[in-house]
């Protein structure tokens, strides 16, 4: 097993220190409601998701990411299949996972699926590896959550080896070894971009640097600015490893509507309900309107408002965080497909150009 820092992913990243601005959308594929406010079927939710990805492409969104979940209210367990369907109907938007729960997956299989997506999409695949916020995949696939750190460490290392292309020789403790193994399909033009999503553990930041990944900061509550030291930590770790700087991205939840008030009123009841559900099972407090207003304000991490409000907040935080990429996680269980389509359209046609304008 090689421990040398992988340069696989670095090779695919842009050369200069300043990376192009990338403005994307992520979704967890939350079940949406119909006109009578009843939840749609899983199948219909997934078909709608394909339409959302296609629209994202049409309105100029740079990246479309789909998370991995395994529950009744988040039935998106096979993101790559949905991404393949979107790929077949689009030409421009980059497509990826947000995130792939690598610890409970097989790195070889993840590579194969996303290398296949890369082929289908003409080189538009990306993958973001991480823990995500739910643990359902562990019992489902027979993994012990207590092994989480070790599983992730090993698999992130193997995945970095796979990304380099060419036969892989690797040995670890928690997965069968590979001996000079050719893993297909081969990519056409080097490794596709791969990221590690980090929710606040600095050791994951160091790991991303060490194994050749770019850094995706998942900032879902509280002050975004507190993550600024994480991107410093990342670039300093790269420097110590003698590697070139790599891109840093930000993932945060949001919702865009014509006006601040409309966005707030659409989002708040569903946000409250979603958190209330989680709070009930996890035993913590339900957010108050006051805490919600704080989160959507300048010091919080929700991007809810008119295109102008959201664009200003994105631009400000990218600057503070030294990041070149922003992915707004849109959608919230119970919102309608139509509201989501409107949000995507506003994000593509108004938020994105405005952020570019502010930052240019």
């Amino acid at each position, binding site marked *: 097993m090689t421990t040398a820092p992988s340069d696989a992913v670095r090779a695919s990243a842009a050369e200069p220190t300043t990376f192009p601005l990338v403005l994307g959308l992520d979704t967890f594929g939350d079940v949406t409601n119909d006109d009578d406010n009843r939840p749609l079927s899983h199948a219909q939710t997934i078909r709608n998701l394909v339409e959302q990805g296609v629209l994202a492409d049409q309105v100029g969104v740079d990246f479309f990411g789909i998370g991995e979940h395994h529950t009744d209210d988040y039935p998106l367990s096979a993101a790559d299949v949905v991404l393949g369907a979107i790929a077949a109907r689009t030409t421009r938007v980059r497509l990826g996972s947000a995130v792939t729960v690598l610890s409970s997956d097989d790195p070889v299989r993840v590579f194969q699926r996303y290398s296949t997506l890369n082929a289908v999409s003409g080189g538009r695949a990306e993958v973001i590896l991480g823990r995500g916020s739910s*643990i359902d995949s*562990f019992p489902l696939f027979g993994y*012990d959550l207590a092994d989480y750190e070790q599983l992730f460490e090993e698999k992130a290392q193997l995945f970095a080896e796979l990304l380099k292309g060419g036969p892989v020789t690797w040995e670890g403790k928690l997965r069968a070894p590979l001996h000079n193994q050719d893993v297909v399909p081969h990519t056409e033009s080097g490794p596709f971009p791969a990221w590690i999503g980090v929710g*606040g553990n*600095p*050791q994951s930041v160091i790991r991303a640097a060490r194994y050749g990944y770019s850094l995706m900061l998942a900032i879902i*509550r509280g002050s975004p600015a507190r993550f600024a030291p994480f991107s410093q*930590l990342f670039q300093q770790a790269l420097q110590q490893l003698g590697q070139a700087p790599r891109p840093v991205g930000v993932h945060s939840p949001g919702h865009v509507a014509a006006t601040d008030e409309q966005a707030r009123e659409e989002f708040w009841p569903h946000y409250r309900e979603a958190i209330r559900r989680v709070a009930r099972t996890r035993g*913590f407090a339900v957010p108050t309107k006051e805490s919600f207003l704080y989160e959507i304000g300048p010091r919080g991490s929700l991007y809810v408002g008119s295109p102008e409000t959201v664009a200003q907040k994105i631009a400000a935080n990218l600057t503070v965080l030294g990041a070149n990429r922003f992915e707004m996680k849109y959608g919230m269980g119970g919102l309608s497909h139509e509201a989501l389509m409107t949000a995507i359209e506003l994000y593509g046609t108004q938020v994105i150009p405005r952020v570019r304008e502010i930052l240019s």
Partner: protein
Amino acid sequence: MTASLSSMPRLPRIAVLGAGHTGPVIARVALAAGHPVTIAASGSPEKIALITQVLAPGAEPRWAADAVADADVVVLAIPLHKFAAFDPALVADKFVVDTMNYWPPIDGVQQMFDDPRYGSSEIVQRRLAHSTVVKTLNHIGYHELEDDRRPAGSLERRALGVAGDDPGAVKTVAEVIEGIGYAAVQLDSLRAGRLLQPGGPVFGVSLRQTEFEQALAA
């Protein structure tokens, strides 16, 4: 170990065990309050040197045994599932702040803690028989710990519970919490500290002192 350390001329030395989400933030706020701070993870100091330098400059990265050696207060900021393999001798005769939570929906079920008759810190204390355990900092998110600090006397000052069986230890730790920027609400046993756990009335809620006391009493 029952005397309060508050008579000491300097602030207690703090050793933080854990350099993940929570450890470096605790180190940083403790440093800001004027404490000498050491920090350790399960491996070598080199492994966490950069993390410490960037996230908690001024703290000293060490091997865990060295970090603990001259500390007055040891903060356990390690995942609970690592606790079964944690060596109690390491923190013998120390005040130990237990920030850990048993939180099955997030971290999975663990047999050692899956006993509704006891709070997780009671089980920790039983295992750390030669240490004096105080439960606090478990019910505030690591992402809030820095932003929510307020100076003494501020009307907005957030309350944190401090629970333990040993009054001296509770007093010492309560002073640390006050110094960091929170109102310390003391609970006189680890048993009572069960109120601070996930599912309890104050877990993950930002409350001022009177609200906090009311929530505990309700």
